C-alpha cells in the first residue's frame, strides 16, 4: 500500500489516496474503491522523472500520481501495456497519404509549374521581357567580371553589329521573333553564348575565334535565337523563382538541409536545361536549312567545342546542363539537307569585323 494523489479526470481537485497492487488490478482506495485491471493501466511514456509515475485506465483522463519507487518498479513489471502508445491513424492510411503527398509535389513540380509558367511567360509583353533581359544581362556581365577579378570588357563596333544583324535576319527569314534583338559581345575567351529574356544575346569573343566560317558562327546564333524564340530564359526565370519554397516543404529546416536542397535544385535545373538545349538545336536546324546554310557547320563547330569538354558520366552526368556533344553532333548531321549552299552569308570584310571586334 502506498500513498498517492488521485485525480478523477472530472475535476482538478487532488485526492490523497492509498493505492495497492493486487492480483490482476491496481486498487485505488476511496469511499468507492476503484479497481483498474493491470492490462489497462496506462502511462504516456518517456517520463523524465524516474521517481514519479502518472497512470490511469487506458483512454481515460483519471490519474494517480505515484511517487513510491517500489510500486513504480512493480507496475513496470506487471502491467503488460503500461507504455504502449495510444493508437493513432493506421499505417495504411498514412501510407496512402504519403503517396498522395508525393503525387501532389510531383504534379506541382512536373505538371503545374511548367504548364503555368510557360503560358504566363508567353503572355508577358516583349517590353516587360526586355526589361528582365536587361537585368539578367547586367547580372551576367557582373558575374563574368567577378570570375576574372576585373570588369569584363564589352566589345562593340558598328561593323560587327551590322554583321550580326545581317546573320540574324538571314536566319529569321519568315519568322517573327517579337523582340528588338540586341547582341552584346564580351572580351572573354570562353566558347559560349547566352540567351537572355527579351532577345538579349551575350556572345563571348572565344566563339568568334573558334568558328572557322561564317556558317559555323551562324549555327551558334541560330541556336541562341531558338532560345529567344521559345522564351526559354523568361520561362526559366519564372519557373525557378516560382519553385522556391516547394522542396523546403518536404525537407524542413535542419542543418545540412540547405545542401540537400541545393543538390535537388541543381538536378532539376540541369534536367530542364538539357531539354531546352535540344529544343534550341532543333530550331537552329530548321532555320539554317531554310536559310540555305549547311547544318553540318553546326556539327563541325560542336566537334571543336567538344575538344574542350569531356562528357560526364555517372552521378556527374545528372548535373550536366547540356546534352552530350556526341548526340548534338549526330542530330546536326542528320538534319543536314546536303543541298547546295545558298548565297554568301557574310562578306570577307564583315567576317573580319566580327573576328577583330575585341582587338581595338
Amino acid at each position, binding site marked *: 500500500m502506498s500513498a498517492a494523489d488521485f485525480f478523477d479526470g472530472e475535476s482538478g481537485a487532488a485526492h490523497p489516496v492509498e493505492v495497492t497492487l493486487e492480483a490482476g488490478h491496481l486498487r485505488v482506495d476511496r469511499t468507492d474503491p476503484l479497481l483498474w485491471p493491470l492490462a489497462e493501466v496506462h502511462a504516456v511514456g*518517456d517520463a523524465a522523472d524516474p521517481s514519479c509515475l502518472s497512470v490511469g485506465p487506458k483512454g481515460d483522463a483519471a490519474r494517480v500520481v505515484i511517487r513510491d519507487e517500489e510500486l513504480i518498479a512493480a507496475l513496470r513489471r506487471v502491467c503488460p501495456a503500461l507504455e504502449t502508445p495510444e493508437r493513432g491513424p493506421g499505417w495504411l492510411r498514412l501510407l496512402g497519404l504519403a503517396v498522395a503527398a508525393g503525387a501532389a509535389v510531383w504534379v506541382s513540380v512536373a505538371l503545374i509549374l511548367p504548364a503555368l509558367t510557360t503560358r504566363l511567360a508567353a503572355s508577358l509583353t516583349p517590353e516587360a521581357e526586355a526589361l*528582365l533581359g536587361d537585368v539578367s544581362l547586367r547580372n551576367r556581365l557582373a558575374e563574368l567580371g567577378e570570375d576574372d577579378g576585373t570588369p569584363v570588357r564589352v566589345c562593340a563596333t558598328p561593323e560587327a553589329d551590322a554583321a550580326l544583324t545581317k546573320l540574324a535576319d538571314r536566319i529569321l527569314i519568315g519568322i517573327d521573333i517579337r523582340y528588338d534583338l540586341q547582341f552584346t559581345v564580351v572580351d572573354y575567351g570562353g566558347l559560349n553564348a547566352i540567351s537572355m529574356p527579351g532577345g538579349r544575346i551575350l556572345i563571348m569573343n572565344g566563339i568568334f575565334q573558334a568558328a572557322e566560317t561564317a556558317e559555323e558562327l551562324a549555327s551558334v546564333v541560330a541556336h541562341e535565337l531558338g532560345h529567344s524564340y521559345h522564351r526559354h530564359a523568361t520561362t526559366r526565370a519564372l519557373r525557378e523563382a516560382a519553385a522556391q519554397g516547394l522542396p523546403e516543404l518536404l525537407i524542413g529546416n*535542419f542543418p545540412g538541409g540547405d545542401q540537400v536542397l541545393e543538390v535537388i535544385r541543381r538536378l532539376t535545373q540541369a534536367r530542364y536545361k538539357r531539354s531546352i538545349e535540344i529544343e534550341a538545336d532543333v530550331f537552329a536546324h530548321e532555320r539554317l536549312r531554310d536559310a540555305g546554310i549547311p547544318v553540318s557547320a553546326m556539327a563541325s563547330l560542336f566537334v571543336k567545342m567538344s575538344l574542350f569538354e569531356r562528357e560526364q558520366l555517372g552521378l556527374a552526368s545528372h548535373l550536366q546542363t547540356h546534352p552530350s556533344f556526341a548526340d548534338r553532333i549526330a542530330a546536326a548531321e542528320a538534319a543536314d539537307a546536303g543541298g547546295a549552299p545558298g548565297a554568301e552569308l557574310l562578306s570577307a570584310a564583315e567576317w573580319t569585323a566580327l573576328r577583330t571586334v575585341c582587338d581595338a
Partner: protein
Amino acid sequence: MVLETKFAGSARGLLPLAVWGGVATVATLGLYRCWIKTRLRRWYWSAIQPGGHPLEYTGLGGEKFQGFLIAVVALALYIAVVNSVLMYLGFAALNSEHGGPVMAVIAIAPMVIYARYRARAYLLGRTRWRGIRFGLEAGAGGYVLRMLAGILAVGLTLGAALPYVFWDLDRYITERTWWGTAQMRMEGDWRELIPAARYLWIGLGALLLVAAAALLIDRAALFGLLIAGPLTLGGWAYFRAEGFRIMTNAKSVGVMRLRANPDTKAIVGTVFVGVTVVYGGLAVAVTLAQRGFDGRIAAISYNDMTELLVNVSAQWAILASFLAVMIAIYLFWAVLMHLVLVLPLLRLYATAVSIEGDGFAAVAQREEARFATADGFGEALDLGAGL
C-alpha cells in the same frame, strides 16, 4: 496555498532520447521526426511538475505525420499556382525580379501565423495536468490580423512598438486559453513591458547604426556587428525573460493567480552560451567541412578532375563522405540543441512559475478536441518551433 513548480529532468536522462531522435531522424530521411518530437515533448512535459504533479503530453506521432502529409498536399498545389502567378505579376507589373519573391513571402505569411495558432491549439489540446485538459478556443483569424498589424507596427517604428505588440498578442492567446472549464485572464497594462525592452532597443539601435555606417561611410563598419549582434541577442533574451515575469504575474486561471520570478541573469547567460555553442558551433563545423571539401576539390589537378567526371565509383565515394560529414554535424547539433539550450531554458522558466490560491475543485474537465491536421501545417511551413 502556493504551488511551486519542480523540474525533474536531467541532461543525463535526456541524452539517450536526444541521440536516438537524431539517429532515427537521419535514418528515416526525416520521416520519423513527428514521432521523435512527440517523445521529446512527452519527456519535457513530464519533467514540469507544478505542485509536484507532472504535465502529461498525449499527442501522437501518427496524427502529427498525418497532419503534415495533408499540409504537404495542400501547400504543394497552393505554392505552385500562387508562386507562379506572383512571380509573373512581379515581372509583368513591377518589372522587377525581386517583386515576386517579396509578394510570395507576404502571401505565405498569414498561413504561417495561422499555422502557429493551430499548432498552439493542438499542443494545449494534448496537454493535461491533474487529469484536466488544456484548450485554446478558436480565434486564429483574429490572431493572424493582429500579428500582421503588429509586425507592420514593429517594422515602421523600428522596434518601438514591441512592448505593445508582445503584450497584445500574449493577451490574445492567454484569454482564449482554458484549463478545463477555467478560462485564463490577463490584467494590467502593456506599458509595464517598456522597461524590459531597454537593452533590446539599445541593441537594435546599435544594429541600425552599423547598417547606416556600412551603407553611407565604409563597409568595414560591418565589424560593428560583432558588438551590435551580441548586444541585440542579450537584449532579446532579457526582454523575453523579463516579459515572461511581467506578463505571467498578470495572469490568472479561475481564482488562481500565476506568479513568475525567473532568474533573468541566468536566462540571458544560458541563451548566450547556448546560442554560441549550438549556432556558432554549427557555423564553424559547416564552414570547416565546406572548406575541407572545396579545398580538396580545388587541389585536384585538371587531368584528375576530368578523370573524376567519368569515374563513377569515385563520385559515389565523394558523395558518401560528404553526406557522412553532414550527418555527423547534424547529430551533434541536434543533441547539443537540447542539452545546452532547450533543457536549461525550460528548467529556468518552469521553476520560476508558481500558482497561488486553491480553486482546483471548481475546475471541471473539458471535452477532448479533435485535430484533423494536428500541427501539420506548422511542421510543413517549418516554424522551427522545437517546443
